[in-house]
Each structure stands twice: as structure tokens, then as C-alpha cells.
């Protein structure tokens, strides 16, 4: 497992969060409803404010500010330093919970903030054992969400397909449900380290690039797939023949195939072109 920093959590999601000086919330706020700006960093920082401010996580509610007239709740401004401090403390006390948090962030869900707040409070209380507290509804929600992201990451390590372009670089396209490009690119920077490649998340327009030595991330607004190399076409055909003949004809089982490899992933699978 790679070492995670707070930076890891934030990079792929929202790049430019304006930083606003931290204003301390009132110790005894009558309300227990809190709002934040909708960014991941804002989320971690809001959780830090509530926990540091002595709020009772079991009573508190946390949600994204919608800016409607009737919205109630105390808006917590994003404080990067507070977010960082909370993150460091969590890493010390519950390193596994940090991984859960990392995967949870990849899921990009936006209605589990309150559960996350309670999960993190429990992680400070119980350390890494928190991940076993699945009878607790909030822990269950966070761990299940994180697990789903982890499963898709694992699946995509197998299903991602690289194509060789005319200029010899390699391109892989995908449309995963979760924002997994960062750990996925780390995986391939070890596996395909002798090649120069791009991974492109078509849905989020985000890209990872490996130049043979370093990994970088960015967004691509405009994208057209370049021409494939000549060799590429020949190899694809060989793979397609292999794929067809390796199945035992007497044991055909399209249902099982689909449940293991849902059709939503077929779009970029070489062996499933033309189906």
C-alpha cells in the first residue's frame, strides 16, 4: 500500500479551493446543524471544527451548503491547516481508518457527511478496531461505501486496456463509477513502468500520465483518440481469437460472465468490441 497524505485525498477531486482564514466557531452553539462548502477539504476541515469545538458527533448534522434562503445551520469555513491536523491525528491513531477515508472519498457521495463525522469520532475513540463495528449504522455506511470503491479499483486493475498509438505511447480509457484514477495509476506505474502511458477517465475528464519516471495528474477538456499503431490492430485480433477459443463451448454461461464482468465495462474492452 502506498503511503497516503491528505494531498492524495484531495488532488483528483476539486483542484482550486479558495482558502479562507479559519474563524473559530462558538463553543456552545445552540444549533447542531453544520454546513460546509462541498469540497473534500472543506469536509475534513468541517469535521475537525466540530470535533475540536467540542460538538457531540452523535447529535450533530453536517451537510453541503445549498445557499437557499431558508437553509439553517452554521457554515464552517474551510481551514486547510485544521484539515491537515485532523488527518495527521487520524493517521497516528487509526491508520486503517485513513485508508477507509481515502476510498470513501473516491466514491464522491454527498449525503453521508454526518455518518463520516461520526465514523471519524469513533475512529479516534477506538482506533482501527472501528472498521469492525459494522453493527453501527454510520460505520457500516462509511465502510460499505469505501469497500465498493475498493472493489471497483481492484476490478479496474484487470479490466483497463492499453492501446498502442502511432507515436508508440499507450492510452487507456475508462468510465468508472468511482474516482479511482490516482491509485489505479500508481498500480500501473509499477506494472507498466517501461512504457509511456496515459489513463483517461472519460466521465471526469481527468487524466494520469506516466513518462517512465514520474506520475502526473491533470484534466483534459478536449479529447480525441489518436490513431492506433499498425501492430495494435494485429495484436487485438490475436487477443480476440484467444478470448473466443479459451471458453469451453459445452459450458457456455453468459449470465455468469455478465455478473462477473458487468456490461457497463464492455465499452473499452478489446475482446468485447462489436458485441
Amino acid at each position, binding site marked *: 500500500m502506498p503511503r497516503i497524505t491528505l494531498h492524495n485525498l484531495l488532488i483528483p477531486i476539486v483542484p482550486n479551493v479558495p482558502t479562507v482564514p479559519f474563524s473559530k466557531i462558538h463553543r456552545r452553539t445552540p444549533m447542531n446543524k453544520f454546513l460546509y462548502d462541498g469540497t473534500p477539504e472543506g469536509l475534513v476541515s468541517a469535521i475537525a471544527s466540530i470535533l475540536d469545538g467540542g460538538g457531540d458527533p452523535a447529535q450533530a448534522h453536517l451537510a453541503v451548503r445549498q445557499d437557499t434562503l431558508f437553509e439553517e445551520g452554521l457554515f464552517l469555513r474551510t481551514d486547510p491547516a485544521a484539515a491537515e491536523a485532523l488527518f495527521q491525528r487520524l493517521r497516528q491513531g487509526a491508520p486503517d481508518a485513513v485508508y477507509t477515508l481515502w476510498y470513501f472519498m473516491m466514491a464522491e457521495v454527498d449525503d453521508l457527511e454526518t455518518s463520516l463525522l461520526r465514523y471519524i469520532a469513533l475512529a479516534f475513540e477506538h482506533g482501527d478496531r472501528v472498521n*469492525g463495528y459494522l*453493527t453501527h449504522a454510520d460505520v457500516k455506511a462509511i465502510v460499505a461505501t469505501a469497500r465498493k470503491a475498493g472493489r471497483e479499483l481492484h476490478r479496474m486493475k*484487470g479490466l483497463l486496456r492499453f492501446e498502442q498509438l502511432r507515436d508508440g505511447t499507450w492510452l487507456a480509457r475508462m468510465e468508472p463509477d468511482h474516482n479511482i484514477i490516482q491509485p489505479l495509476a500508481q498500480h500501473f506505474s509499477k506494472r507498466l513502468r517501461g512504457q509511456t502511458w496515459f489513463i483517461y477517465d472519460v466521465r471526469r475528464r481527468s487524466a494520469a500520465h506516466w513518462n517512465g519516471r514520474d506520475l502526473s495528474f491533470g484534466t483534459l477538456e478536449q479529447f480525441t483518440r489518436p490513431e492506433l499503431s499498425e501492430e495494435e490492430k494485429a495484436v487485438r485480433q490475436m487477443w480476440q481469437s484467444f478470448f473466443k477459443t479459451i471458453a469451453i463451448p459445452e459450458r457456455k454461461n453468459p449470465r455468469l460472465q455478465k455478473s462477473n464482468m458487468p456490461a457497463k465495462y464492455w465499452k473499452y474492452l*478489446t475482446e468485447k468490441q462489436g458485441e
Partner: protein
Amino acid sequence: MELQEKITILSGAARYDASCASSGCSSDTPRRGTGNTSQGGICHSWADDGRCISLLKILLSNDCRYDCAYCVNRSSNPVPRASFTAREVVDLTMDFYRRNYIEGLFLSSAVNVSPDHTMEAMVRVAEILRNEERFGGYIHLKIIPGSSPELVRRAGLAADRISVNIELPSSESLRRLAPQKSKEAILAPMKLIGAEAGVSLVERRKSRKAPRFAPAGQSTQMIIGASPETDLQILRLSQGLYQRMNLKRVYYSAFVPVNDDNRLPVLAAPPLLREHRLYQADWLLRFYGFSAEEILSDDAPNLDESFDPKTAWALRNPGFFPVEVNRADYATLLRVPGIGVTSARRIIAARRFAPISPEGMKKIGVVMKRAKYFITCSGRPFERTDQQPARLRQSLLLGDGTEAKVPRQLVLPGLG
């Protein structure tokens, strides 16, 4: 012959091989090379039969000198023959690996010319991949029975996993159906591999630089239903292989009749359910602390068709139940039908916080449809556990206690 055609012939000939796993071992990859092996097995695709594809599974040649009764490639069959050159297999592996189609190569072969001739050609493929292409991905080599110890050693040094097929569950069957292979020719390399792997482990504890010998271990495979052995005989054999030969995995392959041969049984369909039950029982041997003798007995030497082996054991041992989930230890929890390794671990982790209630069991993800007949939560039973065995059988069969449908019948092409 076109490469494309060779692929079709030689992957078609390899498809009946059951093992697909490429799993669980980390490797020190050469720094500039291509590839690594990953912990915990990655599947790259699923074939039309629903099986996972993780390796380029292929024969080096299907041009066989031997004449095993059950095999498509036997010398007396009029099938098209083909052989790859070492370079062709190396290039295919690299081309597929670079595109992330595969985790690596699984190379087997028919006996072409002689066991040593074939084994030497296979080892060369692995050595070129490792030394010239600096390939760090997964390599599984089949050992041809009767090949020399020196070649077996070279295979073990180049590959992550090596395996010798035991082929059939008894030496009588082997004599009858694969007369050119002998029990000794199969067991000798198995023993050698076990010994070499042991030596390598000891050496590597002294120095990280000592060579690795088949770090992912040794596996084997046998055909089920082509010969008359009982399930008990088969499980005893597997148990011995795990305990005495230190095998990582035994694969079972339902016999698919591809030849007309009066030495072979006539089956309406390949015994898929039996294969499935054997895998379940094998799982009980490896991870659940069961012995072959607990699962089956001389009076009832074959696995139950209606129940998975753990449920069948539970029905025969009502005295063991109900199990109290808030107190039972890990090994006891594992004996409950429907509770697997994951569920048992989760139960133990969750009950540290508070006793688990029936709703709690569902929350942590334990599938209750079979388990509910065999457990209590803080003394509270889920179902009336004083049910008579016959009634309990009925509930399990009729209620929602049955498992997902296992295919019993094959849909034959043209008849479906």
C-alpha cells in the same frame, strides 16, 4: 501456418485445464523490466463460459506422442496439429501483458518427441521472458511427467508456480486410461519440487539474494468422473497432497467426453455439480479445519447432491449446534453452514463493541438463509432449533435455505 490459426488450435487445446489462479505472491521485479505480480489475484476478463481469464493459457504444442483416452490431443485423434516457436510465445505474452490483457503466462504442452525435449522447449520460453525481456509478471509452467530433474529445477527457478498433473485419482485408472504415464513419473517431480522449494525458503531466510524456487508454490489437477473412484478416495488423496506434499492447490476438472473410447464411461453430461461439491469440500479441508474423514465416510463415500458438504456435516452432527455467535470461537463459527471466513471474522470484530443481535447479524453482512437454523444470538434462537433432523432437512430444502442454482445439465450446442 498463420499465428492466428496457431492461437486458435493451441488455446482451444488448453481450455479444459481447470486452474486459472495467478495469485498471492509478491515478486522483486527487475528495475527496468516490465511487470510485477500482484497480491490477491487479478482477473482480466471473463470468458463466455464465465471463467476468469488471468493468464495466457496455451499449449506450446498439441502434437502428442502419447495416447491418453480422455484427451483431445491424443495421438490417435485426427485433429489439426500445431506448435509454437519459443519466440512466438514470448512475443504474445509481452504483447498481451503490455496491453493489460493478462497477468502472465500459463504454459503447458503435449508430449512432443520426448518429455525432455518438450520440457526443455517450455523452460526456454520462461527463461527468455525472464532474462531477455526482463518480464516480472506471472509464469506458471506445467511439468511433463518423466522430464529430467535438471529441467524441473530450471523450471522452478524461472516460474512462479509449477505443477504436475496427477491426472486421475488412482494409479489403476492411470494405468488404464493413460498407459504411457506412470505414477512414479508424476510423483517424482512433485517430491523434487517440494524439496527444492523448501531448500530455497531456508536459503532465502539467510540471504535475500538466494534464488527463488516456484515462490507461488505447486499445484495439481485431476479429472473427475472419467474413472470409478469415490469422492472419499479423491478427498483423501487431496488431503495427503496438502499435508505431505505441501501443495498449494488441487484442481478438479469435470470430465468432458471428447473421444469415443470404450474405456471411458458414457455420461449424459459432464459432472459439474460433483466438481462444484468437490471444490466446496476442498475448501473445507484447506480453510475450515475439516478432515476428509469428517466430510465423508466409508458408509457414505460420496458428496450429497442436495446439500453443500458443510450443511451435510451439520445435519449429521446436530449435537454441535446451536452455536452461540456472541461466545463461540473462530473455529466453531466456521463450522456453521453459511458462515464463511469473512463472516466469522466480522462477527468477532463486531461483538467486541456490543453483543450482536439478530438484526446485527444481517447488518454486518452474514447471509442468514442457512445459518439461521444453526445459531443463537445471546441465547435467542432464530428458528426453532429443536427441529427433528428430517424436518430440518425439509426446511433447508424447501425454504430459502437452498443455495444458488448450480448447473447440473449442460446445454449442448444445437440442442439448447
